[in-house]
């Protein structure tokens, strides 16, 4: 398929799923009333449901899914590892530890994305150091390191919960981080996350061609003229920005970064200049739909979206793992 056609299709899919996300929910709202609410002509209860509950939630899901999709594509390309993803590598767990620490510290709300970024950067840097030992990254090294980092971050979170009076009063906020959910977010948080995701995606596009050159590994990238130290550092920072923004907004949402690039490569090809925007759109679409499922599956009760992505993503993960084990990676 031509890249432009595929990307246009993904834009259509995102718009359609966002419309669906705004239209559907626990309370039945007439589509005409939804439209009226969107242009500011609905009655107060309808306007509240659409503008303060559903729309922010759809936007948050799109931002989180898009960020994780791009982060997954970057990590897979850099580590040349089909199983790399912010969740599996423990990058999300590092970001979660940062988020929870920010809540514990009681700083301003905007401190959370920054703390999540720092946590993500710390984790992904550890993964990278480990992955390079011996010059060759095995799929297993990255997975094991991810498990260890996730455990460490999890222990850190537990420690904070027990030690901090402030957190024990805000267990709901902590739980949101740990199970992964795009509950209603304030517009300030959404704007900050949108800005981070936009900047990080542009940076990812700027890195796209250099990341292509990693097709045969870091050393070949160097012989093709890529400053690999500099590129690696940039990719790690961009990945941490995206993961931090996603986790600050929605906590630990699993497997989106793993599934989306895999699902899209057969469609749009391997070149990152196309794959990155495709993963942004595809990840956003997937998470908007997953969140819709989370809202209506057990309505009026709501599932955290992390439950849906976990249920869908884990079998997919095993599939990819089995395939890479067969090919002897």
């Amino acid at each position, binding site marked *: 398929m031509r890249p432009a056609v595929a990307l246009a299709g993904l834009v259509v899919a995102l718009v359609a799923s966002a419309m669906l996300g705004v239209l559907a929910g626990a309370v039945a709202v007439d589509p005409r009333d939804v439209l009226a609410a969107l242009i500011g002509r609905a009655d107060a209860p309808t306007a509240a449901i659409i503008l303060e509950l559903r729309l922010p939630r759809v936007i948050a899901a799109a931002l989180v899914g898009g960020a994780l999709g791009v982060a997954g594509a970057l990590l897979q390309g850099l580590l040349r590892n089909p199983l790399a993803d912010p969740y599996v590598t423990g990058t999300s767990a590092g970001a979660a530890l940062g988020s929870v620490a920010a809540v514990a510290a009681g700083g301003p709300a905007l401190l959370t994305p920054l703390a999540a970024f720092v946590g993500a950067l710390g984790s992904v840097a550890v993964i990278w150091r480990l992955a390079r030992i011996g010059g060759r990254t095995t799929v297993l090294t990255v997975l094991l390191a991810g498990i260890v980092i996730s455990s460490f971050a999890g222990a850190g979170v537990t420690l904070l919960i027990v030690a901090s009076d402030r957190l024990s009063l805000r267990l709901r906020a902590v739980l949101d981080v740990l199970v992964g959910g795009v509950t209603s977010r304030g517009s300030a948080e959404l704007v900050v996350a949108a800005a981070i995701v936009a900047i990080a995606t542009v940076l990812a596009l*700027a890195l796209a061609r250099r990341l292509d*050159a990693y097709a*045969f*590994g870091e*050393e*070949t990238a160097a012989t093709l*003229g890529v*400053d690999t130290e500099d590129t690696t550092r940039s990719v790690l920072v961009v990945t941490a920005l995206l993961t931090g923004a996603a986790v600050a907004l929605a906590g630990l949402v699993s497997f989106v970064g793993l599934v989306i690039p895999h699902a899209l490569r*057969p469609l749009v*090809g391997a070149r990152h200049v196309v794959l990155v925007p495709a993963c942004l759109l595809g990840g956003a679409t997937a998470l908007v739909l997953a969140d819709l499922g989370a809202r209506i599956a057990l309505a009026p009760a709501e599932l955290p979206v992390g439950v849906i992505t976990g249920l869908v993503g884990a079998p997919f993960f095993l599939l990819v793992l089995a395939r890479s084990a067969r090919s002897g990676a």
Partner: protein
Amino acid sequence: MRVTAHALVAGYGTRDVLEGIDLTIGPGLCAFIGPNGAGKSTLIRALAGLIAPRSGRVELDGVDLRAMSRGAIARRLAVVPQVFDTLFPFTVREIVALGRTARLRAFAGPGDTDRQAIGRAIELLDLGHLARRRIDTLSGGERQRAVLAMALAQEADVLLLDEPTVHLDPAHQRATLALVRDLARRNGIAAAAVLHDLNLASAMAERIVIVDGGRIVADGPPAVVLTQDSVERVFGEGLLVLEDRLPPAIVPRA
């Protein structure tokens, strides 16, 4: 265009693999031969600036590699790697286009010059009919040719090849090396290839460098270097050199 090693010592960890190499690679095809672990691949990597010398230096036309950016090196020196497995479904054309990486700016697409270079490389390696195929659907030999085309698309004046023929059948081995040799002759490219097949080296290379124990033990035209004496010293007594042939032929003793 030439690449020169001066008193080059290099290795991994605490181990020196190259123990003082003085060598100049100029226009033409030069073959590196030697037993396993002799340091041939390490020599290629050091000449490409991929591992830093512990002492001594490597120069590209008199400029120390350490003073050059990776991009500047890649515009003048290309390496054909041993690895040609990739995880992702790049097409052959996209792989060959990677050779232009050092000549493109971040957001700019390939221009006419780039497209011509990519097209030429694809044509030279007879990959036209495979250009749109995904690289993971090709045979080992086809992939190896795609990777060679990628290096040729760099249009560098120095071409270093690390066992470029391992996955090719004898006819393609010969054809690939003939291509490199002819390019080297026609365009004044300095080419050096690690080869395990002594007969291939003898037939195709203008110059043979024998590496053993991290040092150069012989260097010259095949007829001068490939003697019973020198081959026996490096590879043991199992090989018989037919010195009266031109170029010399090597057969295993029964």
